């Protein structure tokens, strides 16, 4: 007779499946850092030797540095603007009864389900007919359109879960709405808002589709990488670059997701 191990006993097969799944998910990504330290120019086994030359080489490339700073500038702007616009929107959706709210929200979330290609070419077509020259500004606009839905979906659960009576108490004690936001809503929700900023920064920094279609003479970092892919002897340098970007993005997103959890416990402190 089989031993009864409990209602939701750990399922060995499933656990192994999960481990394999995670392994396969991360495997291709892990090869990038591995080969970035490889002294051989071609990416294949066996590994030839350990070297840091590809990393050092990165610092000597002017176009790379320019592209990097362009990406940073755009990402910072996008992050700030998206968050500033998304916060009141998410507050409104969480708090107020509005006629037609559901369709309006679904509409704003549309870019999440439209392929980046469509958004990119559509915006390009419009901007072109309007006679707008392409530049980093147009890329910024394109990125904001993509980031805003993400920003709202990160902020919305936090605001929905946020105890409204805290804001009501503040108003009751005499504070007008803006001061209530500054003194209560913001301090209590700063992890979520910070997470939103980090997430939108990362999305913009890594974004390729819109950047490709909407950029002018100056390029962003992903575009630079795409351009460099044509030169096989530069592969290892690209690997080194990719590793750095991976680490950077990982760190940002990890922090952002951990912040989302931290916010959880701080809020429930008032309700016993």
């Amino acid at each position, binding site marked *: 007779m089989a031993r009864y191990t409990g209602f939701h006993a750990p399922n060995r097969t499933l656990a192994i499946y999960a481990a394999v799944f995670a392994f396969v998910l991360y495997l291709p990504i892990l090869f990038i850092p591995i080969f970035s330290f490889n002294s051989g120019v071609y990416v294949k086994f066996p590994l030839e030797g350990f070297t840091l030359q590809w990393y050092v080489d990165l610092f000597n490339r002017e176009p790379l540095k320019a592209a990097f700073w362009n990406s940073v500038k755009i990402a910072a702007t996008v992050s700030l603007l998206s968050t500033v616009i998304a916060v009141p929107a998410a507050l409104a959706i969480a708090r107020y009864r509005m006629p037609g709210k559901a369709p309006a929200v679904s509409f704003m979330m549309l870019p999440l389900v439209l392929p980046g290609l469509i958004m990119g070419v559509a915006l390009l077509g419009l901007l072109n007919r309007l006679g707008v020259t392409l530049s980093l500004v147009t890329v910024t606009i394109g990125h904001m359109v993509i980031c805003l839905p993400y920003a709202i979906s990160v902020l919305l659960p936090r605001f929905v879960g946020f105890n409204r009576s805290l804001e009501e108490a503040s108003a009751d004690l005499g504070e007008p709405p803006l*001061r209530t936001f500054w003194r209560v809503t913001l301090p209590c929700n700063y992890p979520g808002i910070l997470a939103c900023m980090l997430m939108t920064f990362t999305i913009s920094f890594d974004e390729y589709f819109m950047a490709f279609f909407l950029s002018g003479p100056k390029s962003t970092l992903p575009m630079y990488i795409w351009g460099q892919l044509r030169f096989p002897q530069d592969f290892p340098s690209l690997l080194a670059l990719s590793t750095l970007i991976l680490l950077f993005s990982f760190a940002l997103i990890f922090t952002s997701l951990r912040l989302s959890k931290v916010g959880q416990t701080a809020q429930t402190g008032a309700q*016993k």
Partner: protein
Amino acid sequence: MISVRNVCKSFGRVQAVQDVSLEIQAGEFFSLLGASGSGKTTLLRMIAGFEAVTSGQILIDGQEMQDLPPHLRPINMVFQNYAIFPHLNVQDNIAYGLQRLGIAKAEQTRMVGEMLEMIALPGYGTRKSSQLSGGQMQRVALARALILKPKVLLLDEPLGALDKQLREQMQLELRGLQQRLGITFILVTHDQEEALTLSDRVAVMANGAVIQVDTPAGLYNRPANRQVAGFVGTMNFFEASLQSDGPSVSAATAGLGRLPLKLDPKRYGKSMLVAIRPEDFTIHASPVKGGVAGRIAARQYLGGRQVLYVEVEGRASPVAVAAPANRTGDPWAGAEGQPVWLTWPADAMTLLDPD
């Protein structure tokens, strides 16, 4: 002091508050009593300003307030879940509303200290809000509201989350506080004992409308209809039909026999309800002239008192009769099945329309 005139509130097609009008006097402890969904909390929130009225006016001290957002209204509220700011300590919580009044820091600290003494939490200023118990948070919420010296304080079921002992203690403290300060309190509760204990007057609400506004004694002894009568304390209802032969009027009741009544037959319809409180009955072990015969069906022992359920002819459910119980010589111990006789004073009967 506070006038609520024909206030209605609807959410879409749902009417939460229907044409409510109230006059609340300065310095009184006024309660809104009702079950959940009766509209009492919605009404309170409209007075506070968190919900806008669909129609009607709310006047405070003669000035129209229904269009003002809450931060402009001169009243303060204690919330059901206390709403203590988690990111501020006790001192900063209490002093929250003082900031915009431009009061000097030193003066603020002094006022907070005074408040802490008043709510019996001296020295708690630097405590974090997460370190407070439920009862302590409630007192901090009170202090936070009262430090602004409002003339009206709203309380939204403030004692609901506390256990029985603490609740009763807090009830006494609240009542004492209100009388000392002379502030108008408006309390919302579903607990009728709480409403009766604390209030000068109570408005009983159901389905968004106010059914009766009266003093606690008035509600208990002169309920306006069956709903109020049944809601406030326990009540025995006897169905009766009116019969008039000539000048005398009597009611044939189900269970209590035929009762002569002094009333205007035109005021009541053919059928009505006779309501008598359990403690108005006197129960006798031996036959009494004019009494109604019955048999004890069950006994409910409650410590200092007991409730005897007496079956009478003509009535399906037994009549609840309150009797004292004491340690020495309890005549009713083991009395199930015993025949008894009931009497009651004529003025203990309340006549109600059937619903």
